[in-house]
């Protein structure tokens, strides 16, 4: 809890707080988290959240693998990550404590449901004695509350079963935390009343639990003080909190609308990409046609077919699925059809750690197909940026007639942040110009600027033609085995992708435009990098940062930017895939990797630590 200032009342003002709620999958942790988030957002804090689900669907209650958690960081300042380390840990059982304690900041607060710290439970979590009592937590401020009991007492008269009563104890805990951080309970009360309108007795019990928790914290003196985080200075507008998944889905729907075409989404379920399918399946009124294919290959092939027939056509998957789609993406390269392949990266290789995040698929996005098979590549940098980049993906694919890979990852799609809602009127239409005159029509004729071929779909009289995976003659598109034609076509396909550089924004550098160190990240490392660099700049360190969201082609000013720094530090959640590509494309610069492959996002502190190490060891001289 950086920078606490004593005030005269028992309320302390702090500028940033990170809280983690943790408990069994069945403890309603995600719900508590999202309610706290909403209340916080309404107060005008900037915030960022991240849930963490167990790898097992529902491991036995009280076990370590069964622990679920939700982290929120909120601040009066702009915020880009859900926080490196929680300041407060709310744990509903011993397993939750065991799993999460290592992340808690020194001197942090632990709010624990003391009723669950009985021998059977703490042993299941691997404790020999009760950690709340054996002194092992003395580095922290432990607040043990008999939550189950207090909650049951509060609801003694409710017309509910014991199980039902128990199920509302997360609201009691939430009430306590609301008081602790001075949030109003109203938004949650409204939500509960709406959610349980058909079961008013449950609604009532939850509200009672919530308020009782709040009041309990207020009136008893378990906390010596409580905290307030001031409103952030956010751009005026309407906001909602949005996950990367939701933003991706909305971006696709919006893009299809803006292109005035139906949206086709062909996909085979895979964690953590499946939720895009679930989201899109809800939007049938927007003429969204979802197809759950029999496998990833069918998904991408149907997507190619849908594109051929004129839909805005998307397929989404995660690493293993992208590998399976490789051959068919090559077909889209050869047929020059616009499809977007969303790859929600997860920790590999192979099945790896499916619920964990990683940036291990960049090299595959570039090179994971046989032959010279270039595709456009984008990466989203934050949950809400998924909206923008999904729209950009569609725009670029259809305007440049190319398959495009959009990289996100597990961290991005599950994370959430406030999103300032765009006005639909402000979004620009996606124009597809492809008049084709039957007299002069050339299936592989090209737009002189973009080199895009026309997107002529079946149903147009006089334009009947055949396409396919064999090499095409320039212009006519008929099958050709001519050696020089092949070389020209290989060149044209590469050049077509290269020219997208004219149609994307230049890379922006934060900090000085030239200097000693540029921290250059891509995709989801944005939050940690910008946070670390801003912090260090306030401390007077000369470090600049930039984040790549357009990866193939790179922004046209990238080479120039790189050449203006003595050292380019490239933090990646892999062994250095971007760094290798930069070294090949822009030789002559000095690159250094900061590579983490732990299935977890960067912490701000890790980026800082690396920068400090660079400054200290004087490698810069």
């Amino acid at each position, binding site marked *: 809890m950086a920078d606490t200032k004593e005030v005269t009342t028992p309320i302390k003002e702090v500028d940033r707080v990170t809280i983690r709620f943790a408990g069994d999958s069945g403890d309603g942790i995600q719900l508590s988290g999202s309610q706290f988030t909403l209340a916080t957002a309404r107060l005008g804090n900037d915030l960022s959240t991240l849930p963490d689900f167990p790898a097992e669907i529902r491991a036995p209650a009280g076990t370590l693998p069964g622990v679920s958690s939700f982290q929120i960081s909120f601040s009066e300042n702009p915020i880009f990550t859900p926080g490196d380390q929680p300041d407060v840990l709310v744990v509903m059982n011993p397993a939750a404590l065991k799993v999460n304690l290592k992340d808690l900041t020194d001197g942090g607060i632990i709010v624990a449901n003391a009723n669950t710290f009985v021998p059977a439970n703490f042993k299941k979590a691997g404790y020999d004695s009760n950690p709340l009592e054996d002194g092992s937590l003395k580095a922290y401020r432990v607040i043990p509350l008999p939550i189950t009991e207090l909650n049951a007492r509060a609801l003694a008269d409710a017309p509910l079963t014991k199980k039902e009563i128990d199920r509302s104890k997360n609201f009691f805990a939430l009430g306590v935390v609301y008081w602790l951080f001075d949030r109003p309970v109203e938004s949650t009360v409204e939500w509960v009343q709406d959610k349980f309108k058909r079961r008013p007795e449950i609604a009532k019990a939850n509200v009672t639990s919530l308020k009782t928790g709040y009041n309990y914290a207020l009136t008893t003196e378990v906390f010596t003080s409580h905290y307030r985080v001031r409103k952030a200075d956010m751009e005026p507008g309407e906001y909602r909190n949005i996950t990367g998944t939701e933003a991706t889905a909305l971006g696709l729907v919006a893009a299809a609308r803006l292109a005035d075409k139906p949206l086709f989404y062909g996909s085979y379920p895979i964690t953590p990409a499946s939720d895009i399918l679930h989201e899109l399946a809800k939007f049938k009124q927007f*003429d969204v046609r979802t197809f759950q294919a029999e496998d990833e290959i*069918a998904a991408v092939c149907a*997507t190619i077919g849908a594109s051929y*027939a*004129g839909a805005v056509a998307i397929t989404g998957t995660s690493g293993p699925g992208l590998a399976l789609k490789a051959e068919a993406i090559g077909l889209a390269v050869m047929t020059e059809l616009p499809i977007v392949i969303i790859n929600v990266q997860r920790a590999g290789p192979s099945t790896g750690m499916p619920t964990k995040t990683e940036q291990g698929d960049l090299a595959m996005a570039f090179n994971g197909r046989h032959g010279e098979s270039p595709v456009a590549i984008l990466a989203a940098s934050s949950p809400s940026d998924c909206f923008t980049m999904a729209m950009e993906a569609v725009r670029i694919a259809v305007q440049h007639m190319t398959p495009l890979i959009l990289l996100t990852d597990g961290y991005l799609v599950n994370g959430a942040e406030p999103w300032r809602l765009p006005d639909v009127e402000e979004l620009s239409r996606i124009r597809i110009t492809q008049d084709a005159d039957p007299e002069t029509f050339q299936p592989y004729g090209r737009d002189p600027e973009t080199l895009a071929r026309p997107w002529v779909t079946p149903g147009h009289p006089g334009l009947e033609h*055949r396409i396919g995976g064999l090499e095409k003659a320039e212009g006519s598109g008929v099958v050709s085995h001519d050696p020089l034609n092949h070389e020209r076509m290989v060149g044209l396909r590469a050049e077509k992708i290269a020219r997208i550089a004219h149609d994307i924004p230049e890379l922006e550098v934060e900090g000085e435009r030239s200097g000693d160190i540029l921290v250059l990240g891509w995709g989801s490392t944005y939050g940690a990098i910008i946070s670390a660099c801003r912090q260090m700049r306030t401390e007077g360190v000369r470090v600049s940062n930039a984040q790549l969201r357009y990866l193939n082609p790179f922004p046209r000013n990238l080479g120039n930017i790189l050449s203006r720094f003595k050292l380019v530090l490239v933090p990646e959640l892999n062994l250095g895939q971007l760094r290798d590509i930069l070294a090949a494309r822009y030789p002559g610069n000095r690159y250094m990797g900061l590579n983490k492959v732990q299935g977890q996002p960067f912490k701000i502190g890790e980026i800082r630590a690396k920068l400090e190490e660079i400054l200290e060891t004087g490698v810069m001289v």
Partner: protein
Amino acid sequence: MATISETTPAPSLTRQDFISDQEVRWCPGCGDYAVLAQMQKILPQVGVARENFVFVSGIGCSSRFPYYMNTYGFHSIHGRGTAVATGIKCANPNLSVWVVTGDGDGLSIGGNHMLHTLRRNVDVKVLLFNNRIYGLTKGQASPTSEHGKHTKSTPVGSIENPINPVSFAISAEATFVARTVATETKHMASVLRRAADHRGAAFVEIYQNCNIFNDGTFEDVTARDVKSDRLVVLEHGKPLVFGKNSNLAVRLHNLHMEVGPLDAPSNGSHLIVHDERASDPTLAHILGNMRWPDYPECIGVFRDVRKPTYDELLLGQIDQAQSAKGAGSLQDLIHSGDTWTIE
């Protein structure tokens, strides 16, 4: 650009209109030529404008078919024609979509997509050119090659059991299943014509001779001098009578087929009347499983039932959502959920 035309017949199409400008590149004598010719002949009769036909294929000799049709065409990758066709149909259900595939393309690498396309009842017509061999790759065993067959990849004989394409399609619950022979041009034309009219997943196995790598593979039943005694032509509502002089019949005895003279005394068996429209696939299964030399083989339509197609149901759900909720407003969608305002 001209807009998508309705599915009304162009005034006066002829076979010629369906011949593309590409030189046909099959081996001289290949059975594929006959299928191409019949297809070009029947399409003008189907009542669909030329621009609304799409021929999709995978890879194989047979899969070059789309190049020769003066329609929209997509020569995709090996085994994936059905999947590509599914996407086409979802994006534009107005189109008449045909998939041309081989025994390797459709049943080896593409077997799974075939299965799922058929069970979903996607409205595509699948023509499986069965030559019991990999033609394009020059002569390896295919999933329909006979057990014991000597090929380049099985020099001392195949140790696999062949798939029966018709049985496969019936199990997959294709709503239209037929078999024909490339050399029986009239029969083939009529089967193709019926497939064209079917709404839903239509599967047609075509016995096709690869004179280079598997010459004469179907001769045992299709040769001029034996075919009338070894091919039973299925006709809806008619008993299974065949033979040079229509003197032979297929009878059912319990669950087994028996073949004998038409006028043989019934010893517990009875003549079967073919019923394409039976919702129960048992008869179709039994007929599909009749294989030479144990039985004569059946050609014609095994099954033709109407069920809602995948694309009808898909678009139906969209229509329903739109009539229930109105065609979605993007502004509302973006502004939905728990929002708040910062001033």
